[in-house]
């Protein structure tokens, strides 16, 4: 498919491992990660950069992967939700979302968790207002946000020695 369209090889690091794939140049990073790499944890709620459900970390910064072309990610270090939980255990931040009922349908959750992770790495003790601000570009239609904020500011997240392994 798409044989007549220019293809490009993308080399990058995904969740700590180097990876490479070939995609048509017009392919968004979100499509490439979902369709080529099989990382379907990122969701697509709008595909025009508004909803935040496709958020991943690119070189530590939260990025809307639907707005970025896959080729632009060449050489970058990418983190997705699949890199977080390991050995049958949730990452402390994910466990906090679960404890606080910070998700219902779960569609926004991977974007929320990665956005929050970036915040916590920079600001280990965020206030509620900082957390609220940080996730203001991520839409959630189910929770009303309050319990997501509860999950982010829970001090048990940062005090868990497993936090840094995320």
């Amino acid at each position: 498919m798409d044989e007549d369209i220019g293809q490009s090889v993308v080399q990058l690091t995904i969740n700590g491992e180097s990876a490479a794939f070939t995609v048509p140049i017009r392919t968004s990073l979100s499509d490439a990660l979902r369709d080529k790499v099989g990382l379907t944890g990122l969701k697509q709620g709008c595909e025009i950069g508004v909803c935040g459900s496709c958020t991943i970390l690119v070189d530590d910064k939260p990025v809307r992967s639907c707005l970025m072309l896959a080729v632009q990610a060449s050489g970058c270090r990418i983190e997705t939700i699949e890199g977080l939980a390991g050995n049958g255990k949730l990452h402390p931040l994910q466990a906090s979302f679960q404890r606080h009922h910070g998700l219902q349908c779960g569609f926004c959750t991977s974007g929320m968790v990665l956005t929050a992770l970036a915040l916590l790495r920079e600001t280990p003790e965020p206030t509620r207002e900082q957390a609220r601000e940080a996730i203001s570009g991520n839409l959630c239609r189910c929770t009303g946000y309050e319990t997501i904020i509860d999950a982010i500011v829970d001090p048990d997240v940062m005090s868990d020695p497993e936090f840094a392994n995320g």
Partner: protein
Amino acid sequence: MLSGRAAYIADLPFQDVLYVAILRSPYAHAKITGIDVTAAAGHAGVVKVWTGADVLPKCAGLMARMDLPGFVPTIQPILAHDIVRFVGEAVAVVVANSQAVAEDALELIDVDYDELPVVASIESAMAAEALANEAVPANLVYQGHRCQDDVDGDFASAAYVASGRFINNRVSASPLEPRGCVARYEWTNGQLTVWSATQMPSFLKTMLAIHLAFPEQRIEVITPQVGGGFGQKAHVHPEEALVCLLAIELGRPVRWIEDRRENLLSATHAKHQINDMAIAVDGNGRFLAMRNRSSTDGGAYNCLPWTHLVESHVGASTLTGPYRIAHFNDESLSLVTNKCPIGAYRGVGWSAGHIAREILIDRAARRLGLSPFEIRRRNLVDQNDYPFTTPTGLVIREGTFVQTLDRLEQMVSYPSFRERQASALASGKLLGLGLCIFNEVSGVGTRALSFLHIPVTTHDTATVRVEPTGKITVTTPLVAAGQGHLTTFAQVAADAFGVPLDDVTILAGTTRNTHGFGTVASRGAVFGAGTIGRAAEAVKVKIRRLAAHLLQTGVDQVTLSEGRVHLIGHPDKGMPLADLAGAAYFADATHPPDFDPALEATAAFDPADVVLANGGHAAIVEIDIETCMVRVEEMFAVEDCGRMINPMIVEGQIRGGVAQAIGMTLLEELVHDGEGQLVTTTLMDYLLPTSIDVPDIKIAHLETPSDLVPGGVKGMGESAMISAPAAILGAVNDALALVDASLEDFPASPQRIFDALERAAAKNAIPV
């Protein structure tokens, strides 16, 4: 879900799958005079192109009707043929080897349209100079009344009549995951498997069987993880039928995942009503009578199954709410327009009428110098009135209305709010307080639907099996779209057998084993508890019989707790449930005479009456006079949904519903121009509330268990969208009243607030 591994419809992998893109009408009303698909069909990678003419012989369209006198059914074509009736209606479909190719090929389809006159508003539908859908005479799908009391006397004698014309905005439920469906047809065994992000899998299966004339026993509908529904996914959509027809035709899996634009254009809209309402009040603030005329801008077709009636018609049923209003006179009209069909969205037809009612009550209170709490207290049905029959025939036997009001009054600390409001005004800020007290027709089954004048029979089933090792397997048809039902259901079964939650597994997500109407209308908790509770009881009868036989006692002396089956009051005299189950399965010698050892039962449930939950909301808003922006400063909720199986889940429903209420009242609006063009087709124009818009919410619980549902559960999934919108817009009007302004046209966007302030300024500037 948290680990990113839960599979939603777009995440499911399929071998050999084909991708669908749908061409949608750019016109609100037009005749299709020609379609040329040659170029698209010849495009590399395209497997099939269909137009309406290809589909028509296979399926006439989705027929939606209601067995009420005078109701006009409609048929929504799977792909439009001859005529398109709304912007976004499906006109042609391309199936290709990739999504990108399918979308590219859409551009190669040439359609000639002859524009027809457009019916773009309730007013033009009523004028009926043009018809939006020629199958509907005078553009009127249905006109009905709940009550035709004579109210003229009450209005003539009233000390004050509060009245207004309330124009509610058209909105979209907008689940974060758009719709999607995949179908696979296996010709070797004739099996059609359908994966759909639906809230109503069993109903979808039956409707596919009927509409496609396909043997129902060979259809399985599987629901993956669903990324929110809120009613929008509680319909049968034409696209679902289309995908199935394509799969049958092509013998390969066919996948349709819509994008956001498609969702806003063509997934059911909601809430678009005009209510002309008046309440007659005596000098003591007592309500004498209510009059209402409600009109729904229903779109071009009836949705399946709810039809246009899901708005004004259903709304009328509880319009007098928990208030003693002796006389009620109403009329509801459902009109076709050249817009996307109206459908179910959390709170359905109730939201708009509640907004009108509570704003009018506040207006009366201001006029009579009563507090908003006091005027409601004087009119609420209370314990002494039970059973109280409302004018529409709803019998209220229970409910904590006055307690709810008292609790809200404490929570907002009313006297200090008024002080705060006065000092804010002095510094140029408008603060306002609004509230709403409601009851919710929950756990909607046959009785509730019949009360709503929606003549539909529903029931659900569940199967409960005790495994040989004493573990519990439950099969349910209900879908979890984020309401936390699976945990709730597991809890019901765990409680029934006295075992830890971990010993229970819930099988859901396929129509293969059980039947049900769907996870809609606050049904999940009620029907889950009802079906599972009843099936568990049937199994427990056998467990008790076997245990009594082994313990040489009477069956009524045996109970189950802490994982054991034992004599009541003597946990030591008995055995682990696992041992008893083992005996049932493997030790024939232990059985009493004529013992049927199947530790499995399927039971149906449909509540014997309307299950009524109740509660209330209060909102405090601030209007910035400079920017005309409304900010919700504080929100309060009181909820009585009977026994709470899991308070965290109940509160999650409240918070999510309140956020949607904030969106609907202040931000969200599907805007059509005079030609029926939808102007708001992205989330940049259709504004969903963000974390900045939604404050933390203060919640209090009351618990009046239902005696109609095992476990005392009541549903509450709709509640916040029934009542919180009224509280918010009541608060907006309370704030505006400080400067003698008011707002009856929603949402309360900055432009509308600006206009309201201008109108008030102009009015006050007129010299007397």
